[in-house]
């Protein structure tokens, strides 16, 4: 392949674009760098740097409230990823294979689209009375569990993302493979498991990752549905913002950041081994 063509000539516009690109990266990373730097703050107040050290890490790990909120968040994120991936994959496969103009497919697309454009605060206030009605008044007690509430509400939020990603992934692939499997006598379940799922896998994985992060990030919705004992990490931080921020918040966030990056690196590595392409996954996510 010839290295580059007309596009490679460095004009002032190109140089300008390169500078812009680098500036945007700086803009995107500076606050993260600041948080990481301030996680080594030995002082009592996050924003006041008083000496370099690991105090914040040690006291963060020994703080039961912080640890339990992080654990709650991680549990909720894993649960959300599982629930929204199952429902979203079913929805995505159904939508991709729907006969043209089927009312249930158009309706589902519209409703899921609506979930995406509903402001989070509105979801929050609509879940609050509903959980009370269903969980307390109707006596469906699992819905009174804080973790279940978090997972259900977060999954509602990210289900549309998974559905649309899976649908997009399957839309480009025609049904011949599935037809062939059917002709060869595969049962519907085997066909789904051996043909449809592997084809949709990159989309499903992308969707699962998205739901995981969306859940981990969620603050507003969580602050409405949370129950005593199940305060997720962002809600803990948000309440600390109003009182006093200590360096422990930065320290634990740095730990989570490093863990997330490691997990993502691992996923990327596995994908590359499996012949996948990170750019494709990201594109699938963004499309």
């Amino acid at each position, binding site marked *: 392949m010839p290295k580059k063509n007309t*596009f490679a000539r460095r004009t002032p516009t190109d140089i300008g674009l390169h500078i812009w690109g680098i500036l945007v990266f700086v803009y995107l990373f500076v*606050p993260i760098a600041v948080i990481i730097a301030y996680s080594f703050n030995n002082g009592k107040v996050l924003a006041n740097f008083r000496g370099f050290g690991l105090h914040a890490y040690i006291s963060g790990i020994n703080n039961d409230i912080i640890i339990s909120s992080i654990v709650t968040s991680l549990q909720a994120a894993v649960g959300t990823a599982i629930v929204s991936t199952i429902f979203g994959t079913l929805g995505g496969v*159904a939508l991709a294979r729907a006969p043209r103009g089927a009312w249930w497919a158009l309706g589902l697309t519209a409703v899921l689209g609506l979930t995406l454009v509903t402001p*989070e*605060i*509105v979801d929050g206030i609509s879940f609050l009375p509903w959980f009370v009605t269903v969980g307390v008044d109707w006596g469906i007690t699992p819905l009174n569990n804080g973790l279940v509430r978090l997972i259900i509400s977060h999954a509602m939020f990210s289900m549309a993302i998974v559905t649309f990603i899976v649908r997009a992934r399957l839309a480009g692939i025609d049904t011949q493979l599935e037809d062939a499997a059917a002709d060869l006598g595969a049962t519907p379940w085997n066909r789904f498991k051996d043909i449809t799922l592997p084809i949709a896998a990159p989309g499903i994985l992308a969707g699962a990752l998205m739901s995981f992060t969306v859940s981990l990030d969620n603050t507003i919705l969580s602050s409405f549905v949370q129950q005593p004992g199940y305060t997720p990490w962002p809600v803990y931080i948000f309440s600390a913002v109003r009182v006093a921020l200590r360096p422990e918040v930065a320290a634990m966030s740095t730990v989570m950041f490093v863990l997330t990056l490691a997990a993502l690196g691992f996923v990327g590595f596995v994908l590359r081994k499996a012949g996948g392409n990170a750019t494709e996954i990201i594109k699938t996510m963004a499309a």
Partner: protein
Amino acid sequence: MSTTARPKQQPPAETRETAPTKQPLASRLFGASALSFPTWAYVVFFFIIPLALVIFYSFGYKPDEFTAIATDKLSFDRYPEAMSASFVSTFFATLRISILGTILCLLIALPFSYWLAVKVSPARRSLALALVMVPFWTNFLVRTLGWQIMLSPDGFLSNWMQSIGMLDGPLDILYTRTAVQIGVVYNYLPLMILPLFVAIDASGKRLREASYDLGAGKVKTFMRVTLPMAMPGVVSGCLLVFIPLNGDYVTATVLGGASGSMVGQLIANQFNTAQNWAVGAAMAMILIISTLVVVGVGFALLKLGQTITARLNSVPLQDGRA
């Protein structure tokens, strides 16, 4: 005529024979409509019904100090009540921050995504894209705290700017609208970059090369090929940024303090502090409707712009015939 008529009579028999395989796959793969049932059930039970309940509540009232909602008498009275002077001013301030934030995100992301899709070599593009995603993988609240530290009057940035003489006094940005604006643009920027990148990337090198070959300059190629092809990305990016931004109040609370009140905060207060669900629900309805109106107006402006540019760009082929 007769030759075309004959085969027409045969297909029914053929179809009957091969019916099991010719059926749409949908009905054989458990039936696609049945497959959609769990998702349907979920959104009905956890989205449609709760949302309908909020709409219903917005017509109710607060009967006494200790009850959050009563719906035995329904009226529109909560809507004018919700639109108090302070709500209206916060509402417009929120709208200003959201619209300005969306525009700023677009202005920052457009050259950046173009650079990423066109100028960065494919080998490095994966890494660059992954880097764009990194802030996305860190907690949004924590990133906002990063800005709080940076913008604080006794923070390192303030000290440094004073020491090199850029500032006379301490940095006076934190807890102002400017700080909120910086924060929201920062928080929602990746949501603008990604769809734009995908759209520009999809527009493809070949079309641009064709444009150059046909004698168009760089500017003309950008305006007439790349930008129109990127339009779907612009639209989805703007939606992805504007809608959550308009309901967000976390960023504003962290960076705006008292002056950073957003509509979302007022709604939350009605539910958490004032315990007046009817007014809160009415405010929420106003928020949703206004969000939809802004999105609608945005689409209308876009269509108008497209029509105008199409007029301007239409090339007179012969004697003014477009």
